[in-house]
């Protein structure tokens, strides 16, 4: 075990300081040190995407990112999307269109979808399916997830238009 390093990172707009071993994974720092348990661990090999968080404007799988790589990073997790008294449009649409069942993949799925819609605000179904293919779901068969994301895109675009 090597000496711990001093880690500073911003998660969901809140600054955190903590100690972590150089080998420690971001997902473990988030879940076990910072108590952010929305992102889950499904495989520890980058395949399932249950641990997806947003880091520096990109979707990353926190199970294969060293905490050290997150030094100084801005991180958004599912906890940072909605407001305390209301759901984010994506969260709302996942509920509306039954885009989740056991809920284990959901935080990663929604966080990934959030980034996807930042990068491509009006995706086609095919683009959604491709853009979400790093996130596995064992329950839904994806059909309603795709539906929820497309519906959220529509609503987010309408809100943007209304605001302009």
């Amino acid at each position, binding site marked *: 075990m090597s000496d711990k390093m001093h880690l500073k990172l911003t998660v969901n707009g809140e600054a955190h300081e903590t100690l972590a071993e150089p080998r420690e994974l971001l997902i473990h720092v988030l879940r076990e040190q910072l108590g952010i348990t929305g992102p889950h661990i499904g495989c520890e090999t980058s395949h399932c995407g249950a641990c997806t968080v947003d880091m520096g404007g990109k979707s990353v799988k926190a199970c294969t990112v060293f905490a050290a790589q997150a030094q100084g990073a801005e991180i958004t997790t599912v906890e940072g999307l909605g407001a305390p008294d209301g759901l984010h449009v994506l969260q709302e649409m996942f509920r509306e269109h039954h885009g989740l069942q056991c809920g284990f993949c959901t*935080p990663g799925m929604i966080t990934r979808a959030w980034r996807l819609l930042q990068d491509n605000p009006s995706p086609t179904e095919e683009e959604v399916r491709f853009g979400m293919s790093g996130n596995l779901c064992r329950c839904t068969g994806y059909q309603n997830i795709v539906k929820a994301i497309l519906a959220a895109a529509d609503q987010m675009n309408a809100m943007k238009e209304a605001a302009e």
Partner: protein
Amino acid sequence: MKDLPDTEERKAGLKGLGCSRKRVEDARFTQGKGNYVDDIKMAGMLHGDFVRSPYAHARVKSINAEAALALPGVIAVLTAKDLEPLGLHWMPTLAGDKQMVLADGKVLFQGQEVAFVVATDRYIAADAVDLVEVDYEDLPVVVDPFKAQDPDAPVLREDLEGVTEGAHGPRRHHNHIFTWEAGDEAGANAAIDGAEVVAEETIYYHRTHPCPLETCGCVASMDKVNGKLTLYGTFQAPHVVRTVASLLSGIDEHNIRVVSPDIGGGFGNKVGVYPGYVCSIVATIVTGKPVKWVEDRMENLMATAFARDYWMTGRIGATKDGRITGLHAHVTADHGAFDACADPTKFPAGFFHICTGSYDIPAAYCAVDGIYTNKAPGGVAYRCSFRVTEAAYFIERMIEVLAIKLGMDAAELRAKNFIRKEQFPYTSALGWEYDSGDYHTAWDKALKAVGYEALRKEQAERVEAFKRGETRKLLGIGLTHFTEIVGAGPVKNCDILGMGMFDSCEIRIHPTGSAIARLGTISQGQGHATTFAQILASEIGISADKITVEEGDTDTAPYGLGTYGSRSTPVAGAATAMAGRKIRAKAQMIAAYLLEVHDDDLEWDIDRFVVKGAPERFKTMAEIAYASYNQAIPGVEPGLEAVSYYDPPNMTYPFGAYICVMEIDVDTGEHEIRQFYALDDCGTRINPMIIEGQVHGGLTEALAIAMGQEIAYDDIGNVKTGTLMDFFLPTAWETPHYTTDHTETPSPHHPIGAKGVGESPNVGGVPAFSNAVHDAFRAFGLTQTHMPHDHWRIWKTARDLGLHG
């Protein structure tokens, strides 16, 4: 009576049976506020991790934990020697066998638990695992269940040497577990031998794995002062786990609290009791601190409850015009190193004898031989009722094989042999009493929906075009009409470790007219908190939005056998309705007192009791609830509560018609699913949105199994598919769009007529996908090829048929 709009409005306000109520679970889950077992953190909590065997079969000569124990932060290293004085180095399985908790002298499969390391941190525990030195002497490995039966095959289970009588009858070989049979063999053989046409085939349903996205785990916490053990874990049957934990540990059952928190998918993987649970309990008792154990994905795939691995040989006889006369099935079932199937005790092969499927087959027989090999134990029902998907795959392949032999259209052959609507309740040749069905209606609807005749025409044209060299793609039409058997089950013949397979619901109505219901089941994504409230809303007239549903805490929930085998709706759903009816019966007495009429002068109207002929005189359930708490009513106890323990009189028999249209590229082996139509009949529909979601999900798991997912071993017992790189889970990209449809044939014996649906799409989906692959090559002489139909295997099939030129 009330005028119509009021009635309709009140009914809609209940959000009861039949409406697509949005899920109450979702606000939590979408915000990341679920509480899964790995989210549980307790003060002073330690972490457990396993040393696992790299060998599939080896003698354990020594275990040296010195270096591990010297690592700062390591608290303990448990081995079989430590568990032996407690009698916990072995544990009973649900199938009447026993299983090593930690390697006792030898290991029998790769990934087997050898030692349990307990440390202050999961990283230190993992480091310590590497420091435990185990000296192995490798032994000959058997991974083939047929070779395992050779007279000179290595003895795998030395603990059973000389034991000729197993839990399910005689053992005829040292690697033989049981022979189980149903039906009349002589009658079936006579029918087949005398048949005008006989088809024979061996159909392998490969080894696969339920692979829920959340792996298995637990947190065990012993309060030594109060003598109370709390066990949080990924348990599909928390009450049974409590009973087992009590029997194994000797701790009184009231001093054990088992909690299933949110569960990240189960699919049968979380029914059994695993060494990790036992070791965590021992570790918390030894250390006095909470101990968490959560397996990683490789451990889950290698060691925790596989599914299937059935070699099924069938003979089916028919008349020349396609009337089936007899069916004979023999199965060689590879159970791995320990028989740890999770089946009702009396059914070591589950309900495989539903293998006559949707067909009226006058004579049938089936036998299953369970065999030990050097593979992981399990044999669980991966999103199906016990061995029902094996049975459905078997009969739906045999029908196709017979159709080829007869030169007959497989859709027509099915329709010719369906059990007719007027034959229900129908007793099959293998002894089941099918409750209800209308197969012809469903089948005709399905064929019409996909334009079956036009598809066959297109397929024939495609074959011609292929032969002319104009295309390299073939078209397959995969047909399936499946019948499931779910809802185990009647206590008279279904039990788990002696506990009858009833289920339960307890309801408490609060004074202001809202309620809490607690059940003996546990949701793993099925949405029980949403749907059971709907059942209750329709029964007691309180809006589902005002009913909290709780499950999974054995200190508060009534005893039940849990959620697997699509039993929640058939059994606990029935208990919910029955408990609701008890509430209503008491409410009627209270209403009669309040309205100063006789009980019989009242009638139930959606959410209230109304005086017959005087619609303006009524008491709503909310008013009655309040009265039950604040008025002294002669002869009636205060409060409004009820409990029902429901023992179902029979199983339920959901069915469905699935059609898959698939394009296959002969040169690459790739496939594209052009259309998938799924018609399900699950009886009364509680929440169509959730049913549809279950069907999408089950079909996708079926897609995985049929088209690529397997737990594969090499000859020396190495698991070749131990990560998600090798073990196929479809992404959104590979998953097709599904069209769902339904008919509705209620179960006559279920209080609300519901049959259960969660597993139907897996049971019906696998043969639909597989039949599509087979059907694409039918014109080129293919009768049978084994799953999974990954690109390589399809390419090989095309090559073997000479299609690569």
